[in-house]
Each structure stands twice: as structure tokens, then as C-alpha cells.
């Protein structure tokens, strides 16, 4: 990875003081979860317990089910067997429970999925106004606060089509944060970006981690994984093959598949 060295360089500058992982407070619990697309068994026996404040990076070859897994956490995908408990709420067919979970879980997509017919500011205030019933003025103030945090307040009245990919992805992060989520899911947030724009998005994510956000990130940015993750999960063929602390994971992989994967991407 081209960016790995750059990020490694300033790895020490990351402030880990607020990156507290709770011992008792479980954010996400996945227990014996399976998922099928028709007859195709995509996810097999997924067991994962994420504590409050954890930063988890999920890696693996394409088609290994990593995106599908995190999409199950906010029920963009339905699982057929096993249990998923998010923030103390079990995901079932109960639409009310699903909405409750979705209110607390923010998601950032590979292709940003900003609403092209709304301005940046309207993108950020839509959900707070309609879902949280926040007064418009307050929602706009909050949105501006988060747009400042992702360093693009001056773009607030433009449309997504007028922004670069990196700016759009930062707006998408701000849009999620406006809902005040307790957990953030990132589904390959930098994969659709030009190389020059990856860093600005990763910096925003590092900032979030420094504030103690619970994060699950599907990403190929191994530098980011080393820098902020407290756990790296490696998936292949719909299963969790290996998980470990980042240093151990990269320097001393155990499973043959992991070794092969790492040798392919870290050259």
C-alpha cells in the first residue's frame, strides 16, 4: 500500500489517550450468525463481540463477506440464523427495533451515497430533522459544527456533484455524525477515491477514533489499521479466519490464508 509508509511515519502522533475500550459495555454482539443469498452460503458462523470504544478493521479478499457482515449490523442485509445484538437491541423482523438500531449506527459507504439533489447542508440536516425531530435551526448549527470538523464548512451550500470525491466522503462522514451515532460502520470508505484524496478521509477517521468512537471499518488501508485499530479481523470465504491485535496480526500471522493475503498486499 502506497500510503502505508506515510501513515506509519506519524503513527506515534496519534493521540490514544481517549481511545478507551470498555471492559463491560458491549456495543455489538454477533453470535453464531449465518447468511444465505438464495442457496449461496455467504456468511458462516460469525462470532464477534465488539466492546464500546473498540476500533476494528476488517480485511480480506473481495467476496469474502466482509461488507455483507457489517451491513448485517444495521440490517441493510438480513441474516437467517444466529443472533445480532446492537447496543442491547436484538435485530429481528421488528421494524421498530431496526429503526432504533439504525438511529444509533452511522454508516459510510464506498460510493458516498450523498443525495445529489440536496445541498451539502441539507444532506447533513435531513435525518436529524425527520428522524430525530431536531428543530431546523439547531440541526443546521450541528451540521455546520461537523462540517467544520471535517474541514469543509465553506462547501455547505454547494451540491455534492460540485465536490471532489474526498470532499464528498468527508461530507458523508459528517452526515452520519449529525445523527450522533454511538457506533460507526465504514464500508471501504477510501476504495473509490483518487490516491491523492485517501489521506484526507483517513485523517478524518483517525480524528474520530481519537475521540473514542466505536468503529468497524472494512478497508484495505493497512497503515490505518496499524495506526488506530485495536483489533484486525481477517475474513475469507464468509468466515472469520483470524483476528488479533494489529502488530501481532501484521508481524506474526498464524493462518496460511492470512500469510498469503498479507504477502500479496504488503509488497
Amino acid at each position, binding site marked *: 500500500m502506497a500510503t502505508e509508509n506515510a501513515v506509519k511515519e506519524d503513527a506515534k502522533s496519534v493521540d490514544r489517550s481517549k481511545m478507551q475500550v470498555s471492559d463491560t459495555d458491549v456495543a455489538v454482539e454477533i453470535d453464531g450468525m449465518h447468511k444465505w443469498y438464495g442457496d449461496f452460503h455467504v456468511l458462516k458462523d460469525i462470532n464477534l463481540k465488539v466492546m464500546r470504544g473498540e476500533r476494528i478493521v476488517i480485511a480480506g479478499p473481495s467476496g469474502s463477506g466482509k461488507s455483507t457482515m457489517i451491513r448485517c449490523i444495521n440490517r441493510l442485509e438480513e441474516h437467517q440464523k444466529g443472533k445480532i445484538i446492537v447496543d442491547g437491541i436484538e435485530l429481528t423482523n421488528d421494524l421498530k427495533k431496526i429503526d432504533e438500531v439504525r438511529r444509533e449506527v452511522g454508516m459510510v459507504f464506498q460510493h458516498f451515497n450523498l443525495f445529489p439533489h440536496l445541498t451539502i447542508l441539507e444532506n447533513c440536516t435531513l435525518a436529524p430533522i425527520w428522524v430525530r425531530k431536531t428543530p431546523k435551526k439547531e440541526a443546521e448549527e450541528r451540521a455546520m459544527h461537523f462540517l467544520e470538523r471535517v474541514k469543509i464548512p465553506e462547501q455547505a451550500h454547494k*451540491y455534492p456533484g460540485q465536490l471532489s470525491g474526498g470532499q464528498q466522503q468527508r461530507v458523508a462522514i459528517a452526515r452520519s455524525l449529525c445523527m450522533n451515532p454511538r457506533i460507526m460502520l465504514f464500508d471501504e470508505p477510501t476504495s473509490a477515491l483518487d490516491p491523492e484524496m485517501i489521506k484526507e478521509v483517513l485523517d478524518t477517521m483517525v480524528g474520530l477514533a481519537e475521540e473514542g468512537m466505536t468503529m468497524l471499518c472494512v478497508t484495505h488501508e493497512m497503515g490505518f489499521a496499524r495506526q488506530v485499530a485495536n483489533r484486525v479481523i481477517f475474513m475469507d470465504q464468509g468466515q472469520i479466519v483470524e483476528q488479533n491485535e494489529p502488530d501481532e496480526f501484521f508481524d506474526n500471522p498464524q493462518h496460511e490464508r492470512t500469510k498469503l493475503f498479507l504477502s500479496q498486499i504488503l509488497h
Partner: protein
Amino acid sequence: MAQDRNHSLAYVRTDMVQDEPAPINSKGPIAWVRQNLFATIPDTILSIAAILLLFYIIPPMFRFLITDAVWTGENREACIVPGAGACWAFVDAKFSQFMYGRYPVEERWRVDLTAILLIAGTVPLAIPSVPYKKWNTIFVLVIFPILAFILLTGRLGLESVETSLWGGLLVTLVVAIVGIVVSFPFGILLALGRRSKMPIIKMLSIIFIEFWRGVPLITVLFMSSVMLPFFLPDGVSFDKLLRALVGVTLFASAYMAEVIRGGLQAIPKGQYEAGDAMALTFWQSMRLIILPQALTLVIPGIVNTFIGLFKDTTLVLIIGIFDLLGIVQLNFTDANWASAKTPATGLIFAAFIYFIFCFGMSRYSMYMERRLDTGHKS
């Protein structure tokens, strides 16, 4: 231009070239004509042919419509003179009939008032910079229809006017506007229904759409006026105009639904997922995210359907309702005005009125398309 030329590969520009005006033969009217009309030999041939054709058509048309036309007159005597062009005196004499049909003369102020209310409501709504859009919309969609109903049919002490007396442009506009305004939301619901995951709703939507699309409008109108009474219990009857309205509206809804479904299909899955991930409900997602984009995409198709509907209103003639075209045709039989030029004049007049409305819709839709274009799609 001091360029230091030598034969090595290295080159450094020392003086920047300043802007100069474009060569004279690349702009201006002569350049335009040369580039657009006479660029190649086939272009030249086609341009000359087109110009000759215009010379051949326009002068006689101009003579018929303007210079040779009969503008004033009391009856057919004025229009049967040799060499007479269009008989505008006929249109002038019959104008109020073309507008109101057989609506009682002393009550026609009610139609005028309705028209004024309609214009007062829709013009500010159509101009984006006029404020109070919410109240304006409530007026146009809720208050105006009630007022129009009271005024036109005659309620609350106003003298009742049977719909069988309505006619002319009044009927055309009533059928077209009701058809457009009602078929639009119906079309949206049917389009959503057809894409629904709920099998029964999906099935009902498909059956509805395919049935109404598969039947000619003339059949629908005939059935509503001839067959429907057989199925209703004795003594129950609906107004003929109302039946035509229902028929036209259901017919247009089916077409509208398919146009809107096309727009819905063009919206990327990620837009739905972003809405879901933010805990928006289905209807919120549709109203705030999906439909605004989908409808913008299919404005040309929607307006196409509106224009088609507007012109299809002429078919109500076959069930004995005299819309604009119907009443114009009816007047051809008036012995007072029978002349060789009367039918042509009447039809040109009717065509002109239809054209104004359809062209207006078309231009407004192009304006909205440009206005709602926010650049790139997601």
C-alpha cells in the same frame, strides 16, 4: 516572439504569447451561415431546397391567413366572396361558444372567475422565486377545486348549471386539468406499488396498469357512457362528464405509472440504502430522497403524458360531450356560416389553441429541467 530555437530537445519559453482576437472569418453572421448552411455540398443542396420550399409554402399561407382573410362580417355572405381566405369572422362570431359551450350567458362570469382564480393560483406557483409556496399549493390543490366546483356546477345559492350545458375550451380544460392533477399522484402510487415487495399490492398494480394501458381510450369512454348504466342499479346514475373524467384519469394514471417507474429504476440502490441507514421510514425515503430525483429524471416523459392527455380530451366528443374541437365542428353545420373556408378556419383556430397549451407545457418543462439540474448524478 523571441524563441530561442536550437536543435537540442531542451526548450524553455522565455516570452508568454499574449491573447489575440480570433480571425475575422471565424465569427459573425457570414461565418455562421457558411458553417451551418453551406459547409459541404450536400449541406448546400439541402439548404437551398429548404429555402425554396419555404418560399413555396409561406406566401400562400400568409395570404390565406392574413391578407385574403375575412376579419369582419355578420354571416356567410362575407366569406363566400371569390378569393376569400380564412373566415375569421366565423371564429369571431362563435368565439364565446367556443369558450363556454352552451353555458348560460348570464352565468358565464362564474367561468371567468374560475379561470382568474386558476391563473392567480398557478402563475405564482410556477415561478420559483415567489414565496409562500406552501400556502400557494394548498390554495391550488385544496381551496381552488372546491371553489371551482361550487362556481361551475352552481352550489350555495348559485343557479345550478347542468354539465351537459358545459362545452368548448371549458370542458377541454376541466377534463385535462382534472386528468393531469389526479393521474399524477395515482401514477406515483401505482409505480411504487408495481415495485413493491408485497406480492398482492404488486399484483394489483400490474393488473391495473396493464388493463388500462391495453384498452383504447375510446373504448373506455364508450364503456363509461354506454355500458356502465347497465351494471348500475336502477335510479343510480352518474353525471356523463364525471364518468368521462374518471375514465380519462384512470387511463392517464396507467401511463403515468410506467413513466415514473422508469425514473424509480434509474435511482441507484445506494440512495435507498443511505436512507435506510439513517433510519428514515419508507415514505420519508420516497418523499425526500427517491421521488424528487426520480421525477426530475422523467420530466420529459411526464410532460409527454400530460400533452398526450390534453389532446386525448378531444375524444370525449364521441360520447356526446362538446369540448373545444367538438363545438368547433358542431358549428360547421350552422347554415348561417356555411362556406367553403369555414371548416378550415375553425380547425386552424382549434389547432392553434391546442398548440398554445401544449407548447406552453413543453417550454415550462424544459425550464424546470434546467432549474432542477444540480450537476452530477450520484
